[in-house]
């Protein structure tokens, strides 16, 4: 029972190897079998250990916990595990319906699942580094999978930038090992009061955090994300935006838990970084015309909102950030998968060329609209809950509140812009009835609605957080939302749709790899000055 985390890592990897070896169309269904086994194991594991997460710790080989590699779980990691299982189900169902399931694709996809489980459950810093490296290579291959020129470029860009980030992470681990004599996260957490004020540990914090900033695409170093998520296949985009990029935020939570006793004042710094990420992301998203680029830049801006929540001392706002990770995973994968269906049928990604989607494929449109309502924070949908928690927590502070308000207006504007694809007459027929794809989209849409309405028992059960102070059916909430939509529409009608400068300039703005490296080093220096020298 205690070794279930090992099975969760090994089973997908083993299945992927078998699929690769047999290169057989029927053998591909082994992926679904492995997925089913993983699902059952995760549920059994949760039922056995919920309420007693201390007991989940074990060391490979039975060695001293300061020497060997250990794994452990808590409510956070297990909820991420369930999110991972769910997202992989949806992506697998979606790919299997496309008919041309390539065994290479399934191989890399399943291997990535095992590796991602490893990132979530490991309790060892170097082990985490190994998994991060492996995940970066796998994601690179998946981005470049269809071997077109732009996907190659995005893949290599992703690999180089992320390798730079992971390397600073490694240097941070080395500094920690020299000081603590171990890299077991639990042991370091307990010893942190002894060493927290030392310069070397502060510097290690900076290095770890700058690696994480790259991984989770924070403000100055987010440039790899739109490239990568914009050009990959839609299923992969959904996976990357929905889940893999959240790996960075998961590490942010983990490392800050490890440094909890050191009491660094990171809140203000990362709040500002999050707010900047959100605003810049929305700004770029507004200028885009490519449907997938819009969604990719919105991932950047939503990550900013999550960061604003996570970097709060208020427990409620913090859980708002955590909850937003889950909600965003649902609605963003829904939007990307839906966009994938539409792009496949219309053979273009340009928002202003696609018309009449609602008449052509009503079901896909309805699911897409659910996703759009969620991301803009409409009451009754899940995005509303987490955004309300964050809004509720920061309403005393004027600047913070208005920042969030502006970001919401930007989000509303850009999805009003995107909703133009639904209008118009039916322009072409949609002969294919893709049952599995529709099923995948429908499940995620239901997930959005369920999390948006039954949030009180769900969060009480999983995190033990009482959310009963968030009410959906209040006049003010609906008024707020429609006000945001109205301002967004006016903003769209009078400014964005005219496409006057500086909007095209923002759209065509790009940063060379060299410049992005200098920006990354500048970020490390700024963080060093903030955390170490001040």
């Amino acid at each position: 029972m205690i070794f279930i985390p090992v099975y969760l890592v090994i089973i997908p990897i083993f299945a992927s190897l078998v699929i690769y070896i047999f290169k057989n169309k029927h053998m591909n269904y082994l992926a679904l079998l492995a997925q089913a086994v993983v699902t059952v194991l995760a549920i059994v594991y949760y039922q056995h250990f919920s309420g007693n997460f201390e007991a989940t710790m074990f060391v490979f080989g039975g060695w001293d916990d300061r020497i060997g590699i250990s794994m452990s779980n808590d409510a956070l990691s297990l909820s991420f595990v369930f999110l991972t299982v769910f997202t992989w189900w949806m992506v697998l169902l979606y790919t299997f319906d496309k008919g041309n399931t390539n065994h290479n694709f399934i191989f890399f996809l399943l291997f990535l699942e095992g590796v991602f489980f490893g990132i979530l459950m490991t309790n060892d810093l170097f082990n985490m580094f190994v998994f991060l490296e492996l995940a970066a290579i796998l994601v690179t291959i998946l981005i470049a999978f269809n071997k077109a020129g732009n996907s190659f470029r995005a893949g290599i860009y992703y690999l180089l930038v992320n390798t730079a980030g992971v390397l600073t992470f490694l240097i941070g681990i080395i500094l920690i090992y020299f000081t603590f004599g171990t890299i077991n996260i639990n042991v370091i957490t307990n010893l942190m009061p002894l060493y927290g004020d030392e310069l070397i540990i502060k510097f290690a914090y900076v290095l770890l955090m700058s690696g994480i900033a790259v991984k989770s695409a924070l403000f100055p170093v987010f440039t790899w994300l739109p490239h990568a998520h914009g050009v990959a296949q839609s299923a992969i985009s959904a996976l990357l935006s929905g889940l893999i990029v959240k790996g960075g935020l998961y590490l942010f939570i983990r490392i800050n838990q490890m440094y909890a006793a050191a009491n660094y004042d990171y809140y203000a710094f990362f709040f500002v970084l999050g707010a900047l990420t959100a605003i810049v992301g929305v700004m770029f998203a507004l200028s885009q015309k490519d449907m997938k680029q819009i969604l990719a830049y919105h991932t950047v801006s939503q990550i900013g909102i999550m960061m604003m929540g996570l970097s709060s001392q208020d427990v409620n706002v913090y859980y708002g950030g955590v909850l937003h990770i889950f909600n965003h995973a649902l609605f963003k994968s829904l939007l990307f998968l839906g966009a994938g269906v539409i792009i496949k049928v219309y053979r273009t990604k340009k928002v202003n060329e696609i018309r009449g989607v609602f008449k052509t494929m009503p079901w896909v449109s309805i699911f897409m609209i659910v996703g759009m309502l969620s991301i803009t924070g409409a009451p009754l949908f899940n995005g509303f809950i987490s955004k309300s928690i964050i809004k509720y927590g920061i309403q005393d502070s004027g600047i913070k509140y208005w920042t969030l308000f502006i970001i919401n207006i930007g989000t509303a504007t850009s999805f009003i812009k995107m909703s133009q694809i639904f209008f118009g007459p039916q322009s072409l027929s949609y002969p294919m009835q893709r049952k599995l794809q529709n099923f995948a989209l429908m499940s995620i849409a239901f997930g959005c609605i369920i999390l948006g309405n039954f949030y009180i028992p769900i969060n009480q059960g999983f995190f033990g957080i009482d959310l009963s102070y968030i009410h959906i059916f209040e006049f003010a909430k609906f008024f707020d939302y429609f006000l945001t939509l109205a301002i967004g529409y006016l903003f769209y009608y009078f400014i964005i749709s005219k496409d006057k400068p500086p909007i095209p300039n923002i759209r065509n703005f790009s940063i060379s790899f060299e410049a992005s490296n200098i920006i990354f080093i500048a970020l490390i220096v700024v963080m060093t000055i903030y955390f170490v020298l001040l």
Partner: protein
Amino acid sequence: MSVSKNIILFALLSVLLIVFMLAMQDLDVLYNSYGRDYYLLYGLEETGSRNLVSAIYLDYRLFDSLFEAGILLIAVSGIIWISKHDIEEKNAKFMIDKYKTPDLFVTFSRLVYPLMLTFGFYVIINGHLSPGGGFQGGAIVATAILILYYIDSERETNIGLIVTIEKYIFMTIIVLASISLFTRGTFFTNFMPLDASLQMKSIYLVLLNLLIGFKVALGLWTIFTAFLKEGR
């Protein structure tokens, strides 16, 4: 533009260097040798490996090594997939122009090839006794195989087969590492009991080193074959 960029970069990096050196000065007092001392004291006794590096990567931190090997596996499969244009081209010949390779070089390659191969296997099999091990020895064996291409430029390589064997070996490594679940009740360690003699423990170490060595050699072999064909 470029000059000012360089100056900014230089200034930024020197700030980092200064902070790093300050941090290193603290280390004189803070340095914690727990891990090092533990390996020195108990490494041989607990794992049966005289080479403590092997003790770490084959026993204490075997879980990491599995995925380090996995990185090579994924890199190989990724390179194969991305460099693959056509099935026919897969089994292409290696193209060193026979007339441009000096005879002296070919002759020496013939002499050196068996020596390199033997040395590679020596490093792999004695990985638990002397410096070396599966990863290093595998790289030497792969280099030896590369020399084969100089000796016989008409040589054909079936990459598909090699890649499949590599996958089988990786699965065998995972299975071999998991046997300890049945003998010692825990994952990823030596399957011999803790109080077994050094000779008994070395069975496991040699087996695992051999498998890792084969895997690394096959992986590197595939990578450079793929690159050579790309370069053509």
